[in-house]
């Protein structure tokens, strides 16, 4: 690889000289301790009010608080970071030194995350996503000033793109397209001109914005909303019938958990905005904690359009993408496990428009399942269909919640042909296309044996052609 320093923009406004070591923002310990500190302060205050005489107890509590804060302060003191030679280095640790290096070419995405407390203080956290690493190894720069974080994110992405294009101009070996160069292909296809440096002012084209009212109604009408409603109704009726609140005590943790999950979904998806930027789709969302994430269309492993029964009455749907790589967040783990929703709730037209923006072409599931499939799944049959073109395969299924899944043929990891005993009796078979994402699999369900066999013979070649082209 040629010297990546030559690809750096002439100046880094945040950093000045890039090889300098930088510190995080001094308020970092407060933000890191976050909720813990708030809870602790509240608890101490309550204790202090409850027994005003007992001052020694208060002193002990204050000492614990001070120790916790000073621990955070020391951690801040010994943490520093640097960008040099195309590598981001983060050093930390007082007793056990820990030095992490992140080659910028390997960075898949950089997220800006703001927890509630960080927002109050105007700080933000930078999270680096590196392919194939778990969350422990991924990089975190917490916390920086919001403007600095945005600026640094932009510059790191520009550096990463520039270093990547350099690599593509001088590929190590043409015969073996390695992951790095495959990624650059993606990046340069997104950039307006391959090899062009991303200009500091990134022009964003807004694509979608969720309506808060609709989101609230939609979540209430969704499955989690329905479960929450049932649980709340159960609690209320129990109280009304028995007349005592003690009977519901065992219910409470359960109810609390469900309400919390619904609230998390709402606060996580509140204000979702999607905009097209040169490096991909900029996704911002959150009510208290704001997450900024960039989805590169070339890294999308699968797209899922979900239309639950009740939502269909309003013509609403949800569009989510599955992107390779771990995305577990400490704060929003429940959200990390879900697919990333580009459109948490929107009209079908909006969602299909988004699919058009993500994919080069949009085949629709137009090939219905054969008549025999009705005997196997009389309800499921209604929406059972698939379709394809030379780049994508799309399948739709599900009666209560209609799910339409698009999978790029070039991302297919393996193809499976499956035939269960009932299917064999009816002369049917299923063909599955597996992709690297965590939960999306396109399954072309219940086709006639002849069609499934023909597909199973043809799809590997189609996938290979898509990979090559």
């Amino acid at each position, binding site marked *: 690889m040629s010297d990546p320093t030559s690809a750096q923009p002439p100046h880094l406004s945040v950093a000045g000289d890039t090889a300098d070591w930088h510190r995080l923002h001094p308020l970092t310990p407060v933000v890191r301790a976050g909720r813990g500190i708030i809870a602790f302060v509240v608890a101490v205050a309550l204790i202090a009010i409850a027994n005003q005489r007992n001052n020694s107890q208060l002193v002990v509590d204050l000492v614990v608080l001070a120790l916790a804060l000073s621990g955070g302060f020391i951690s801040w003191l010994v943490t520093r970071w640097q960008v040099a030679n195309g590598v981001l280095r983060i050093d930390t640790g007082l007793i056990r030194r820990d030095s992490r290096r992140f080659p910028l070419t390997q960075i898949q995405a950089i997220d800006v995350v703001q927890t509630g407390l960080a927002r109050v203080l105007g700080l933000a956290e930078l999270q680096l996503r590196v*392919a194939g690493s778990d969350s422990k190894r991924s990089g975190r720069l917490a916390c920086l000033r919001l403007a600095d974080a945005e600026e640094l994110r932009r510059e790191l992405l520009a550096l990463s793109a520039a270093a990547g294009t350099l690599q593509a101009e001088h590929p190590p070996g043409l*015969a*073996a*397209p*390695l*992951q*790095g*160069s*495959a*990624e650059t292909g993606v990046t340069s296809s997104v950039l307006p001109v391959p090899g062009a440096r991303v200009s500091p002012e990134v022009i964003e084209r807004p694509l979608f914005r969720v309506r808060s009212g609709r989101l609230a109604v939609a979540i209430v009408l969704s499955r989690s909303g329905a479960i929450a409603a049932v649980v709340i109704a159960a609690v209320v009726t129990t109280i009304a019938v028995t007349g005592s609140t003690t009977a519901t005590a065992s219910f409470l943790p359960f109810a609390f958990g469900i309400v919390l999950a619904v609230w998390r979904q709402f606060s996580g998806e509140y204000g979702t905005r999607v905009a097209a930027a040169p490096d991909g789709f900029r996704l911002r969302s959150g009510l208290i904690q704001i997450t900024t994430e960039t989805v590169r269309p070339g*890294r999308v*492993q699968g797209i899922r359009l979900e239309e639950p029964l009740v939502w269909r009455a309003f013509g609403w749907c949800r569009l989510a993408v599955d992107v*390779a790589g771990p995305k577990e967040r400490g704060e929003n783990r429940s959200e990390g496990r879900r697919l990333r929703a580009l459109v948490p709730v929107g009209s079908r037209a909006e969602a299909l428009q988004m699919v058009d923006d993500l994919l080069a072409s949009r085949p629709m599931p137009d090939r219905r399942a054969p008549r025999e499939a009705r005997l196997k799944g009389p309800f499921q049959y209604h929406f059972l269909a698939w379709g394809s073109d030379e780049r994508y395969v799309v399948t739709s299924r599900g009666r209560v919640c209609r799910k339409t899944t698009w999978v790029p043929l070039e*991302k297919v*990891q*393996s*193809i*499976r*042909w*499956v*035939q*269960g*005993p009932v299917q*064999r009796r009816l002369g049917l*078979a299923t063909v*599955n296309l*597996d*992709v*690297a*994402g*965590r939960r999306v*699999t396109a399954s072309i369900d219940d086709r006639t*044996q002849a069609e*499934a*066999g023909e597909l*199973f*013979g043809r*799809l*590997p070649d189609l*996938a*290979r052609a898509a*990979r090559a082209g």
Partner: protein
Amino acid sequence: MSADTVDADIRWQRPSPRLLRCRRIEVASVAVPAALVGGLIGASASAAAGLGVAVGLLVLGLLTERFFARRVAAWGFAERNEDLMVRRGVLVKRQSVIPYGRMQFIDVTAGPIERSMGLATLRMHTAAAASDARIPGLERDIAAKLRDQLASLGEAQAAGL
């Protein structure tokens, strides 16, 4: 009742016949002690009950053995130009195609009974969790050869995510 969906001219390779012996030992090592213990417990009520339970469990073991025999017979794999094909299953028939370039890593494992027979199980992993490609009952040297062969093919055709 042919499950061959793709061209019939694929040359399927099969697991070693010793795999069946391996499975038989596994079944016997569960069925015989179970029959003994069940028989003793049944015999505490009456001798006939004990005999009945023991015979019943042994018959169950024999049925399981038949099932395993069919499963072993159904297993096969084929190395094609660009991908590996694996087929398996009796009740639910499955066939998988895994392009060499998609293989992330390859495992060769051998349990104690397999090891005593000189057999090993080869397992291929792709980036997708759903892909399953497992070939049990390969002779140990064939497994090692296949692993190296697949690894080098995978390296030559490697594709990014």
